[in-house]
C-alpha cells in the first residue's frame, strides 16, 4: 500500500501551484467564456467580466491557502459563496437566467480540470482528490445560486399574486349609493378576507345602499366558495346595505342546488343589468328615455 510521503504535495498546494503558473492563461479563458455567456446579452460589460474573473481567482486562492480541507464555516469559503451570490443576483436583476450562470460555474470547474489533465506530474490519486475538492466547492455554489433563483421566483410570484388580488376585485360605484363587485376566479378564505374588508370599507365611505356582487367570472363553485359568498352578503347586510347576487350561470346554479346551498334569503338576478334595475327599484330611482 502506497504511503503518502511528507514531501508529497497536498491537493490544495497542487491547485495553488497550477493557478500561480497559469493565472494568465486561466483568467484569459475564463474571461473569454464569460464574454460568450454574459456578453452577448449585455448582462455584463467586459470590464465587469474581467473584474469578476480576477476576484474569483483571488478568492479561490485564499480558500486553498486557508487549509488542506475546505472549512465550510471558514471566512474564506463564506467569502467565495457570497461572491457568487452577489454575482448571480446581479445576473438575475439584469434579466439573465439560471442556465447561463450554472453553465458558467460548470465551465470554471472544467478549466481547472483541463489544466490538471495537461499536467502529467499529478498522480491519479491526487487528480481524484482535486476532482472531489472542486466538486464540493462548485456544488455548494450551484446550490446557493439555485436557492437565490428560487427565492427570486417566489418573490415574483407573490408580487404577481398580490397584484392580481388587487386588480381582480375592482369595486366601482356605478350609481349614487350602488357599488359593483365583479368576482373573477375562485374565492378562497384569504381572498374573501381581502374582498370583504375592501367592500365593507367602501360601503362605509361611499354610504352605499346596494351592492351588486357579480359572479359571471366565477368558473366553479363549491361549498367553501358559496359559504364565502353568503358570508359576504351577510356582512353587507349588517352594514345596512343590500347585496344582490348577479351573473349566476346555469352550471353554477346547478352546482349550488346539488350542494344544498340555500340562497332563498338572497336577492339574485341573472345579469348585472337586471341587478342594476333591481337596485334602482329598491332605491326608488326611475330611469327613462328623454321624451318618453
Amino acid at each position, binding site marked *: 500500500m502506497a504511503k503518502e510521503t511528507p514531501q508529497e504535495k497536498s491537493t490544495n498546494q497542487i491547485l495553488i501551484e497550477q493557478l500561480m503558473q497559469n493565472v494568465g492563461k486561466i483568467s484569459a479563458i475564463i474571461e473569454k467564456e464569460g464574454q460568450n455567456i454574459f456578453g452577448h446579452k449585455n448582462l455584463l460589460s467586459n470590464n465587469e467580466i474581467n473584474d469578476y474573473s480576477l476576484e474569483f481567482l483571488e478568492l479561490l486562492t485564499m480558500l486553498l491557502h486557508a487549509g488542506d480541507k475546505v472549512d465550510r464555516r471558514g471566512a474564506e469559503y463564506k467569502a467565495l459563496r457570497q461572491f457568487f451570490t452577489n454575482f448571480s443576483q446581479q445576473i438575475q436583476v439584469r434579466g439573465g437566467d439560471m442556465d447561463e450562470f450554472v453553465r458558467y460555474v460548470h465551465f470554471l470547474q472544467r478549466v481547472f480540470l483541463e489544466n490538471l489533465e495537461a499536467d502529467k506530474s499529478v498522480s491519479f490519486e491526487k487528480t481524484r482528490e482535486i476532482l472531489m475538492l472542486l466538486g464540493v466547492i462548485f456544488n455548494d455554489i450551484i446550490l446557493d445560486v439555485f436557492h437565490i433563483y428560487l427565492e427570486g421566483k417566489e418573490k415574483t410570484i407573490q408580487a404577481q399574486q398580490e397584484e392580481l388580488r388587487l386588480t381582480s376585485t375592482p369595486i366601482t360605484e356605478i350609481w349614487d349609493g350602488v357599488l359593483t363587485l365583479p368576482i373573477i376566479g375562485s374565492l378562497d378564505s384569504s381572498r374573501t378576507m381581502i374582498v*370583504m*374588508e375592501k367592500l*365593507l*370599507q367602501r*360601503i*362605509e365611505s361611499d*354610504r*352605499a*345602499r346596494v351592492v351588486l356582487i357579480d359572479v359571471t367570472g366565477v368558473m366553479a363553485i363549491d361549498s367553501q366558495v358559496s359559504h364565502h359568498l353568503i*358570508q*359576504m352578503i*351577510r*356582512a353587507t*347586510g*349588517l*352594514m*345596512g*346595505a343590500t347585496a344582490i347576487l348577479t351573473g349566476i350561470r346555469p352550471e353554477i346554479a346547478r352546482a349550488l342546488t346539488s350542494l344544498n346551498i340555500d340562497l332563498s*334569503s338572497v336577492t339574485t338576478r341573472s345579469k348585472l343589468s337586471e341587478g342594476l334595475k333591481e337596485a334602482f327599484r329598491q332605491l326608488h330611482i326611475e330611469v327613462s328615455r328623454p321624451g318618453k
Partner: protein
Amino acid sequence: MAEGIHLTPIGDGNVLLEPGEGLDPSDPGALVAPVLEFLQTNEARRLVYDLKNVRLIDEVYYAWLTKLNATCRIANVEMVTVNMQPAAAYALSLTLDKPTPFTCALDIHHLR
C-alpha cells in the same frame, strides 16, 4: 337609566340608543327593563341602536342585542342598528349562521 346606556327621543316615534362606557352586555336581563320602560313612556315605535363606537361585536354583545330586540318586539317596537363598523360587521358575519333578527341600516338618515 342603566349605566352605559343613553336614550334620546329623536322624533317620529324613534328613540336613539347610544351605548357608552360602563355598558355591561353580559347581564342583558338587568339592562332591558329600564330601556323598555323608557320606550313605553315615550310611546316609541322604533329603537335606533347606534353602533358607531362599538368596535367589536362578539357573542356576548350579540346576545345582548338579540335579547333587547326580542324585548322590543314584545312591546311592538322595531329595533334597528345603525353605523355598524366594517371590522365589527366582518367579525360578526363570521360567527352568524342565519340573518340577524333585527334590521340593520347604514345610518340614521337611511332608516326605512
